[in-house]
């Protein structure tokens, strides 16, 4: 599928670039964390309450959770400082921050990568066709895109939940099922609605960029040349327009991953993702404790930053490998 030359370019650029290697290491690291979350996590991330130094659980397992009321009737938050049991302490309802961080990688990466990928798949062909044909086709297609742009993402999410009936799809976690991790949630929620919403909200950007590129590539003489030798529109789009439009799309995609992760956070905050286990949600919630317990928001923030950097570095690598002008001396 991948042409030989492209493969060798990818390899050469990879060998040459330290940053590309760093990016790959980072991304693989985050992916591994997401996949093996049940093993890496120390506690069930959804369980509220905490375990104190003596091994007592508060509130006791099985008890209905309520806010703890102290002896003098004051409101006591079930937050503990980081200790051996809770590497990053617990949050205000007693959930293990570290475990939530580990699990959060799943949602964030799934939505970030899948959502962006879906948006690319929707937006790029749409934009290329609009830009390549121009005129009426372009007029109509881009007006549709404008309408999509005007749609608030929350309304879209609500509508989709209405259509699908549910916001997340619970699937059994294979690692827990295999008995590799006890005491972890048995099913994990695939945030399908959010992924689709995110794609529906962001594909327009890809369409816009691809359209602009296609419009400029269309006027290049090599496209004229291809038409004059009788190549079909499909051939021209595939062989000339797509490859020459890709660079800004890649750049945009790497930026969009970050934006999508953040968009997901606001959606999961409102409960649209079918899970609250996401970095974005953690950041949202941790903001209130930035002064006293800064790590609650900061750690997932670092997770997002690292993932985004990883994707960006890999994007650069991909762009360089695809660009013939950067190709150096040949052996």
């Amino acid at each position: 599928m991948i042409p030989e030359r492209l493969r060798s370019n990818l390899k050469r650029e990879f060998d040459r670039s330290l940053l590309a290697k760093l990016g790959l290491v980072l991304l693989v690291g985050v992916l591994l964390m997401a996949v093996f979350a049940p093993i890496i996590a120390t506690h069930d991330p959804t369980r509220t309450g905490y375990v104190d130094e003596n091994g007592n659980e508060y509130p006791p397992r099985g008890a209905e959770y309520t806010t703890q009321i102290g002896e003098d009737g004051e409101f006591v938050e079930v937050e503990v400082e980081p200790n051996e049991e809770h590497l990053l302490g617990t949050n205000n309802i007693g959930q293990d921050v570290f475990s939530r961080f580990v699990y959060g990688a799943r949602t964030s990466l799934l939505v970030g990568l899948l959502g962006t990928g879906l948006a690319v798949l929707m937006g790029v062909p749409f934009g290329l066709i609009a830009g390549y044909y121009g005129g009426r086709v372009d007029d109509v297609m881009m007006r549709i895109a404008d309408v999509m742009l005007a749609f608030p993402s929350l309304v879209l999410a609500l509508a989709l939940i209405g259509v699908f009936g549910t916001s997340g799809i619970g699937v059994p976690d294979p690692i827990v099922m295999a008995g590799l991790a006890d005491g972890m949630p048995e099913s994990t929620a695939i945030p399908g609605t959010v992924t689709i919403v995110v794609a529906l909200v962001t594909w327009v950007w890809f369409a816009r960029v691809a359209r602009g590129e296609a419009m400029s590539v269309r006027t290049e003489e090599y496209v004229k040349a291809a038409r004059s030798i009788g190549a079909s529109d499909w051939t021209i789009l595939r062989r000339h327009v797509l490859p020459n439009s890709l660079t800004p799309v890649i750049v945009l995609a790497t930026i969009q991953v970050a934006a999508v992760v953040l968009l997901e956070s606001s959606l999961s905050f409102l409960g649209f993702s079918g899970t609250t286990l996401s970095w974005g949600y953690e950041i949202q919630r941790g903001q209130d404790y930035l002064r006293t317990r800064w790590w609650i928001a900061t750690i997932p923030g670092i997770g997002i930053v690292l993932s985004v950097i990883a994707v960006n570095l890999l994007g650069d690598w991909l762009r360089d490998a695809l660009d013939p002008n950067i190709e150096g001396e040949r052996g």
Partner: protein
Amino acid sequence: MTTPDDILRVRDLSTRFFTQEGQINAVSELDVRIERGEVFGIVGESGSGKSVTARSIMDLVESPGRITDGEIWFDDAELADAVGDDYPDAVDGTLVNLLELPERVRDSLRGTAFSMIFQDPESSFNPTLTVGEQLAEAVEVQRRASANPRSTRARTREYSLASYALSTVLPSRKYVTPESRERAIELLELVGIPDPVKRADEYPHEYSGGMLQRAMIAQALAGEPDVLIADEPTTALDVTIQAQILDLLDDLQAETGMTILLITHNLGVIARMCDRVGVMYAGEIVERGTLADVFDDHVHPYTEGLLGSIPDLEGARGRLEPIPGNVPSLLDEEMADRCRFADRCPKAMEDCLEHPPEYPAAGSDHHEARCVLAETTYDETRALSEDHFGETERPAADKHAGPEEPDEEPPEEQSHPPTETTGGEHQ
């Protein structure tokens, strides 16, 4: 070499570009002497360094390029007087070595002592301001600069962002005064724009290419420069418009007596305009002299080849006799210490393996050629064998892997970087 009437003497000028591929010697040890009031032409192909020469004189060489060596002596008694105390090294009589002066002073010479017109008038104007405003601005800049010749800060200080913001609300704070606008209209009139009052209020896109080129000339004349450097002034224009612009430059030169340095690849334009010519190849002048010297009594095989490459408009059609091969690489590491044209030269001899100096040649006193043929006659027994330079001899197999010319000459010969969008001819 030391006629008192030289307005500009460039000595040993070297401009190099430091790129990733390596050091590019765009201009190497160039000597030029331009007399007051003459039209001096530099002709050459793309990558010959002619535009870089112009930019070096204007001090417009941009990074990664740098003038690495040389002197540019400019004859201006007033300037010599003004800077003599601060920079005694830079002054010799009425001559001033511009390269010894600080940035600030050189900046202030731009527009008043030298000004430049470029190939592409469309990109030289700001599309959001009227042509009149832009001209008036140029006039105003020059006026303020000449009111306080040694201080260039004067112009920037008075036109800060804050005053710009004010000027949009308060008409009285406008940078452009009625006087400068008046002068702008005069300038438009001078360059032959019909109805300048109305035209001054139009935007660049309302002008045709030829009119914009006229407006650019007007802009260049705003500071009444001593030397006008015209870098491919007609390359982007059609022949009928080109003829108009050349006539205009001719008239203006006759009227104001200014000196023109004309850079072009078009030998016809040279023949039409110039008194003396320098032919540039690979960063140096290979032949120079009066028009007659270069067109009729040329010595250098490159000049010969250049003239032989032009299809004749009047004569019968025969086969053209092009120069084989391509413009050479100017990468430092690839430049051998020999005649730079030897690998394409039909008359290359063993003597050519040494870098030739400029020899005086038959014809006028000005005629010099950087070629051994000026001294000796071609001797076939000493000719280099066909494959002396390996495959580079064949145009077919040019081994040249880097960019064929340094990036610093983007506008030249309408060359576009491959990714640039171009509609070709817009119709």
